C-alpha cells in the first residue's frame, strides 16, 4: 500500500453543522418524513452546502447483498466504476437511485445503486475476507476512477447525500418514500473544504455510517494512521476518518463500541491517574496503542450500524448533543426543538456527559 500522492497536503473542514438521529429499539419502521422534518427544523445550522441521511432497513429484499451507492460526474465515471465493480463482484441488480427534479438541487451527479456480492475470481484482493474485499473495492473505485465515488456500501442500509440543505437533498432522493428503523441526518456548514457531493455527510463504509458536527483537527495524523491500515481517504472531509476507524477498531480489531468511543475521546491523563489499577492499565494501553487514532477537536457524532446507534461528544463537549426517549424511540440531536418538532411529548430528555458514549441497541 502506497500513501496517496501529497498525503501530507490535506484540506480539512471546520463546520457548525446540525445532526439528528432516531432509532426504534423494536425495529419498527419510521417514515423518512420524521428525520426530514427534524433536519428542516435545524435549517440554519447549515448553509446549503451539504445535507444527507443514512437509513437502516431500507433494502430488506437485498439484505444479503452489499448495496453500493455510487455518484459519478459523467458517463465515463459510470462506465469505469461499473467495470471495476463487475470485475470484482457479482452484480445482482442495478438501477438509477430514484430521484425527483427539484429547483433547489442543481448540478447533481449521476447516482446509481448496485446490489453486489464478491465473485470468486482470482485477483489481487482474493486473499481477503469478504468484508475486507468489499472495503478494497470501495477504495479502488474512490481512488482510481476520476469523478466517481462510492458513498454507501453496506447491507440493508443506504446513505443519501449531496450539496443542498438536508430537506432539499431528501426531496431529491425521495426519502419520504423510504422507511427505516434507524435514521441519521446531517446539515452541513463547511468552511475549509468545498461543499461538494461526496464530501457531504454521512460517511460510510460497509454498514457503518457517521454524521458529525465539529472539526477533526487531528485529521492529518488520523489519515496517515488509516493509510497504514489500507484505508485511503479520498473525500476531502475530516469526518471520513471516523467511518474507517470504526471499521478498523470494531470489525477488525474486535474492540467494543465503548472502547472505540474511548479511543476517539480518551480520558484525560489526570483522570487515568485517579483510576483503579485495572482501568488505569486499560486506558493507558488504549491511549498508547491508539494515540494516532484519537480525534482531537470539537465533535458531536452519531454513529450507526444495522443494530446500534451511538452518540458521542468530544471530551470537553465543544458541540451540542441531546438525547431523548419516547416509547421505543430514542432520539439524538443538536437541538431539542428538532426532536419536539417530530415528537412533541417525550418521556426523557438529557444531555450526555462529554466523552461518554450513549449506545442504543436495536432488538432482534
Amino acid at each position, binding site marked *: 500500500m502506497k500513501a496517496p500522492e501529497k498525503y501530507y497536503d490535506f484540506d480539512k473542514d471546520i463546520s457548525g453543522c446540525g445532526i439528528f438521529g432516531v432509532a426504534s429499539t423494536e425495529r419498527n419502521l419510521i417514515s423518512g418524513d420524521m428525520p426530514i422534518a427534524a433536519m428542516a*427544523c*435545524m435549517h*440554519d445550522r447549515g448553509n446549503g452546502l451539504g445535507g444527507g441521511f443514512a437509513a437502516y432497513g431500507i433494502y430488506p429484499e437485498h439484505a444479503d447483498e452489499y448495496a453500493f451507492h455510487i455518484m459519478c460526474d459523467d458517463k465515463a465515471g459510470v462506465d469505469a466504476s461499473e467495470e471495476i465493480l463487475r470485475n470484482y463482484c457479482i452484480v445482482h441488480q442495478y438501477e438509477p437511485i430514484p430521484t425527483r427534479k427539484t429547483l433547489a438541487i442543481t448540478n447533481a451527479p449521476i447516482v446509481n445503486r448496485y446490489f453486489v456480492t464478491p465473485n470468486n475470481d482470482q485477483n489481487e484482493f482474493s486473499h481477503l475476507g469478504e468484508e475486507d474485499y468489499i472495503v478494497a473495492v470501495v477504495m479502488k473505485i474512490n481512488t482510481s476512477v476520476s469523478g466517481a465515488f462510492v458513498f454507501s456500501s453496506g447491507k440493508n442500509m443506504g446513505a443519501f447525500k449531496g450539496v443542498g440543505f438536508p430537506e432539499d437533498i431528501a426531496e431529491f432522493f425521495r426519502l419520504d418514500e423510504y422507511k427505516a428503523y434507524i435514521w441519521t441526518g446531517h446539515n452541513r456548514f463547511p468552511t475549509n473544504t468545498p461543499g461538494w457531493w461526496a464530501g457531504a455527510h454521512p460517511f460510510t463504509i460497509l454498514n457503518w455510517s457517521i454524521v458529525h458536527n465539529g472539526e477533526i483537527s487531528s485529521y492529518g495524523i488520523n489519515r496517515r494512521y488509516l493509510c497504514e491500515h489500507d484505508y485511503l481517504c479520498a473525500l476531502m472531509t475530516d469526518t471520513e476518518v471516523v467511518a474507517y476507524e470504526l471499521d478498523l477498531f470494531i470489525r477488525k480489531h474486535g474492540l467494543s463500541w465503548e472502547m472505540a468511543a474511548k479511543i476517539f475521546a480518551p480520558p*484525560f491523563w489526570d483522570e487515568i491517574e485517579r483510576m483503579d489499577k485495572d482501568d488505569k492499565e486499560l486506558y493507558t494501553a488504549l491511549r498508547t496503542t491508539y494515540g494516532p487514532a484519537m480525534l482531537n477537536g470539537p465533535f458531536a457524532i452519531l454513529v450507526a450500524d444495522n443494530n446500534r446507534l451511538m452518540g458521542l461528544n468530544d471530551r*470537553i*463537549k465543544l458541540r*451540542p448533543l*441531546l438525547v431523548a426517549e419516547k416509547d421505543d424511540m430514542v432520539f439524538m440531536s443538536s*437541538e*431539542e*426543538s*428538532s426532536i*419536539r*418538532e417530530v415528537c412533541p411529548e417525550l418521556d*426523557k*430528555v*438529557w*444531555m450526555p*456527559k*462529554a466523552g461518554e458514549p450513549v449506545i442504543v441497541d436495536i432488538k432482534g
Partner: protein
Amino acid sequence: MTTTKSKKITLNAKGIYYKQFNELIRQKVAEGYTDFMLENVNGQRYIGTALDGNLTFEVHGVPGQDMGAFMRGPSIYVRANAQDGIGNTMDDGKIIVDGLAGDVVGYAMRGGNIYIKGDVGYRVGIHMKAYMDHQPVIVVGGKAGDFLGEYMAGGIILLLGMFSGKPDAPISGRSLGTGMHGGVIYVRGKAPIDQLGPGLHAQPADGTDMEAIERIVNDYAKELDLDANEILSEGFEKIRPFSHRPYGNMYVPS
C-alpha cells in the same frame, strides 16, 4: 415619570421562521405591547434579543439559541427546556427556565438574573463580569457540566444540585471556575474540590454570603414556585480565587 400600563398580546410561533417572528415581536413592542404570551415556540432563535425595558414574555415550547442575548430589562419565563446560549452578554432583566438549559448559559453576562430549575450544560456563566451595581446572577437548580464560571470576572453563580436528572453525577463537572479572577460561585453542600480549577479555594459561606444567598434563593423559589426553606436547609460553600489578581503576573511579571 410616566406610568406604564401593561398591554397583553398572544403570538403564535407555529411554523414561523425566527426572523419573521422576531420582527413581529419588535413591531408589537413598538406598538406599545408589554406582556407577551408566545405560543408554539419551537427552535426560533434570538427571542427577546437586544430588547430594552419593562417587558414580559412567557414562552411555551422550546426556544432556540441565544434567547435573551444582549437583553436589557425584559423578563422571559420559559415553560419548557431551553437550548444553548441563553442570556448571551445580557445586560439586565430576568430569564427563568422551568426545565433544563443547554451549554453556555449567560456567556459574558453583565447584569440581570438567570434562573434555571434543572441541569445545565457546559461553559455556563463563563466570562461573567460585574461593574458597580450591575451584578449578574445565575442560579442552577440542578447540576452543571464542565467549565462552570470559567474566566469569571464578577457576579454570582449559585449552584444547588437539587433538581437534577443525573443522580450519579457530581454537582459540577471538571475545570470548575478555571481562570476565575472575580465574582463568586456558591455551591449548596460541599464544593467538589476535585473539579476545581487551579488558583481557587472553597470555604464555608459566611454571614454576608448567606445574606446574598438567602436574597437570591427567595427570589428564585418565588419565581419557580419552589420551597426556599428547603433549599436553604443545607449549608453553602463559596469558591473564589486565592488572591485579588491571580493572573496579574502572568504576562508582565512585576
